[in-house]
């Protein structure tokens, strides 16, 4: 029976049809009937549906009768497609033996296709190329095969051709999964080792672990041990995911499923940890994961100081299944007690912020994201600075290094001019430019990470009418002439508004930032002076003049009803305003530095 298990995932560039293919496989194997299907069943977070992307990995078990007449158990582990979620992808990959690599027949190979292939190869997976969307008139299967061979380095001729939308070719693909993906190595006699590749918190049942059993088997009632901390629990429920949770009596070697063991303390569970038996423990834990390196940091603060504990609890719950989300306590003179949080990228940051607000009902203020600078002090010490306001005084700094990234951008050739000038404007260093097809260009650039953090992605999209794809990875640290720019509001520095900028840009960015803040800070009862300063020297200034008149003229019967509704609304609006002495600064102000474009 064990030899009839196949664990696989699907990797693809965003929009190449990964979720659609997953849906089709579920439907064709009878895991879900048409009636049960909703579009893209595996994307279960609200946010995922709204944004049309997969954020969290998911798992589901399919059964399929192969040509040999045997029924095979196919465990599909869904993976996110966005560049920010590479870490999630690697978690899923570690639970598989094979991967379907989808290439859109109308688009060809894209930036994330490559990134995902590299990850899969690192994890030693069997990769099956799948050319999707062959039903579309614009599809070019031969070109896709050529690109798979030449740009990706896989055998393009062996690629399956499918239409995930119509189901064409999916039957053959299912057989291909059985034939080409190796079954898991079965070690029934060795002590239990199960890899936790995801976990969620359920208010009623506690922590639910998603596991892949590598060695041995796990049964209901077993005493299990989480190897990282050595804490023991009893399995109260386990089962498979279809994708709904279906309780079973045991999970065998090679299988994927969920385990519940009455765990209430979030600290006990870490994704990447290994579960073993308390009575017959394994000697060594599974390799787990490379620690995810957050590259973007921002301050997260409750709008009302009273909500600090609530925010803390919400953050802990989110961290449970998002180990890439780093958190440390932080205080700001301007914003009070909060958290310094590390993210994989801007999208990851936005998703976390939205999940905290929506799923956990928190009112947040957050500061502009910053990269991590490496600062060598004059005494030789090297420190990392992820919060601009914590940058030491210039006289004790020997040098500052900033992170650089290797970026690859794929786009149609007619946008070469726009893309190159955008890259140059972001301090990009061109390393390579090549044609991956007669129509498409790939450029390889190095950028300071800080430059692509702000509006790079948006600008790239608008410069190429949405036809560019973009992926990057951290490469190294390089010295930069950086300075801290402080923002003063009515003469008082607001630490949460400080930014680190390249010295050569400081005058220009200071002016732009003051101008932007003037647009964002609403007129109020007092004039608001906004200044940008470097080392105490003011380099730019704008004034928001005081409001002179803001009073409702009429206040009789209906006007009072209206005012009452307005007061209630205002109370909501206030949630996003932070009080600095007499001045109110809206949330947008903290993000202004991200939108310092000329237009």
């Amino acid at each position, binding site marked *: 029976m064990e030899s009839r298990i196949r664990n696989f995932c699907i990797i693809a560039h965003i929009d190449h049809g990964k979720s659609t293919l997953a849906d089709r496989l579920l439907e064709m194997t009878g895991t879900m009937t048409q009636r049960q299907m909703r579009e893209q069943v595996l994307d279960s977070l609200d946010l995922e549906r709204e944004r049309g992307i997969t954020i969290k990995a998911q798992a589901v078990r399919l059964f399929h009768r192969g040509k040999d007449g045997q029924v095979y158990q196919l465990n599909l582990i869904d993976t996110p497609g966005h560049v920010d979620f590479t870490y999630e992808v690697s978690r899923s990959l570690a639970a598989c033996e094979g991967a379907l690599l989808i290439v859109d027949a109308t688009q060809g190979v894209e930036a994330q296709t490559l990134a995902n292939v590299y990850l899969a190869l690192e994890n030693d997976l069997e990769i099956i190329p799948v050319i999707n969307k062959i039903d579309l008139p614009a599809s070019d299967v031969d070109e896709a095969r050529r690109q798979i061979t030449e740009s990706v380095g896989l055998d393009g001729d062996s690629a399956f051709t499918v239409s995930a939308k119509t189901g064409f070719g999916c039957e053959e693909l299912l057989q291909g999964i059985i034939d080409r993906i190796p079954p898991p190595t079965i070690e029934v006699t060795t002590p239990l080792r199960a890899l936790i590749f995801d976990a969620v918190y359920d208010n009623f049942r506690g922590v639910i672990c998603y596991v892949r059993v590598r060695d041995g088997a796990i049964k209901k009632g077993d005493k299990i041990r989480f190897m990282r901390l050595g804490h023991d629990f009893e399995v109260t429920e386990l089962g498979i995911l279809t994708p709904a949770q279906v309780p079973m009596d045991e999970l065998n070697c090679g299988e994927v499923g969920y385990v519940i063991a009455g765990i209430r303390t979030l600290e006990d569970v870490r994704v990447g940890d290994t579960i073993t038996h308390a009575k017959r423990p394994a000697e060594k834990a599974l390799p787990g994961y490379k620690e995810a390196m957050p590259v973007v940091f921002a301050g997260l603060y409750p709008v009302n100081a009273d909500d600090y504990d609530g925010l803390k609890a919400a953050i802990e719950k989110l961290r449970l299944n998002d180990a890439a989300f780093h958190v440390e306590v932080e205080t700001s003179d301007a914003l009070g007690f909060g958290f310094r949080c590390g993210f994989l990228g801007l999208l990851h940051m936005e998703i976390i912020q939205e999940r905290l607000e929506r799923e956990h009902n928190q009112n947040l203020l957050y500061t502009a994201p910053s990269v991590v600078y490496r600062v060598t002090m004059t005494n030789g010490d090297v420190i990392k600075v992820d919060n601009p306001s914590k940058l030491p005084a210039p006289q004790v700094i020997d040098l500052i290094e900033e992170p650089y990234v290797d970026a690859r951008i794929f786009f149609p050739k007619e946008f070469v001019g726009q893309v190159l000038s955008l890259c140059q404007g972001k301090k990009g260093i061109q390393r390579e430019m090549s044609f991956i097809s007669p129509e498409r260009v790939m450029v390889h650039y190095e950028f300071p990470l800080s430059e692509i953090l702000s509006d790079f992605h948006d600008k790239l999209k608008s410069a190429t009418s949405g036809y560019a794809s973009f992926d990057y990875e951290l490469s190294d640290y390089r010295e930069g002439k950086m300075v801290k720019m402080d923002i003063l509001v009515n003469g008082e520095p607001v630490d949460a508004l400080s930014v680190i900028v390249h010295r050569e840009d400081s005058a220009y960015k200071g002016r732009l930032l003051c101008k932007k803040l003037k647009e964002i800070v609403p007129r109020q009862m007092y004039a608001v002076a906004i200044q940008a300063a470097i080392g105490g020297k003011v380099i730019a200034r704008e004034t928001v003049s005081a409001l002179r008149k803001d*009073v409702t003229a009429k206040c009789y019967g209906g006007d009072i009803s209206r005012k009452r509704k307005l007061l209630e609304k205002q109370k909501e609006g206030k949630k996003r305003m932070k009080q600095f002495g007499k001045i109110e600064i809206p949330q947008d102000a903290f993000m202004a530095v991200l939108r310092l474009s000329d237009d």
Partner: protein
Amino acid sequence: MKTIGLYIHVPFCRHACPYCDFYKFELRDRPASLRLGFLETVAAELRLLLARHPHLRERKLATVYFGGGTPSTLHPGRFRRFLDQVFSEFPHREDSLEVTLEANPENLTAARCRQWQDAGVNRLSIGVQSFHAGDLELLERLHAPETIHRAVENARGAGISNYSIDLMFALPGQTMEAWMDNLRQAVGLVPRHISLYGLTWHEGTPFHRHLAGGRLATAPEDLEADMFLGASEFLRDHGFEHYEVSNYALPESRSVHNQRYWTGADVLPLGPGAHGNLGNNRWANPDDIDAWNGAIGRGVLPGAPLDDPPADVLLAERIYTRLRRSDGISRMSDPDLHGACVRWLETLDGEERQRWVVADGERLQLTPEGWLLLDPIVDKIMTLT
């Protein structure tokens, strides 16, 4: 004995003004029967209300206010019967019972003024808006400057000496000089009461669309503020008390009815689109004369209660309405409101305090400059509660 006021919303207009966002419609758009039977239906609504709240009959009737819309489009002959019905429901009435009619100058003929006076109307609120033909044209008012003078003479001739004049400022293109001239002409008509309203660009009105389309422009904020302060100074020099943000009165001549709104006194709403309150419970009739007519025809009260707001919103509402008045907030009678205001006061420096507030330990009032910033001031106070 507790008192009660009545507000009757009359939604008919000969011509709808392009800046107005009250519930109203033009007479030509609806059958005349609606207007003919209107006050009868209002009387039926009052009886339904009193059947629901019988204890209100024991209240002392203090004010009756016909607002709109344009109440003066209703024939004066029907008012007598209506007011008699009202009086029969309320055996107790203030000696100083105030019965106000909002009226447009073109409706104030000598004969009609006598009929209204005879029916019991003892106060007129005259919608003058401006003495300048250009402004009146822009505002699409139906009267000419000379009509105003005749209207006032007719009112006085009929024995209604208690009349108020409404003016608007911060009109597109209006200069400071033109505004001050309006004030001089208004004072020349010897009103006991004057209301001055800065033009408000309500969403959904034709004016708002013109603003969005760039066909009209708002007055500069500084000019509007100067007009407000200039008017306050001018009228106070002429013996008027600036007793509420938008209202001025000679001694003993404040609007009794409108003061009920600012002190939270009970007002029963009658007519489609009317709002009122009993204590903190506010309710509103539908903005729909057919729905209103239909409900009363079926013997059902047409009003719907407003949502129950949280305590801090109620507090803010009370502060907001009290601070609109020159009487301000008294520590003795409203210690909670006074306390909230004092917390705000403590955040001000000496200069700001002098500019915006008059306060001794007992009473706290806003200056005209403070009134100009009333909305953000209340927001501030709210953040401190």
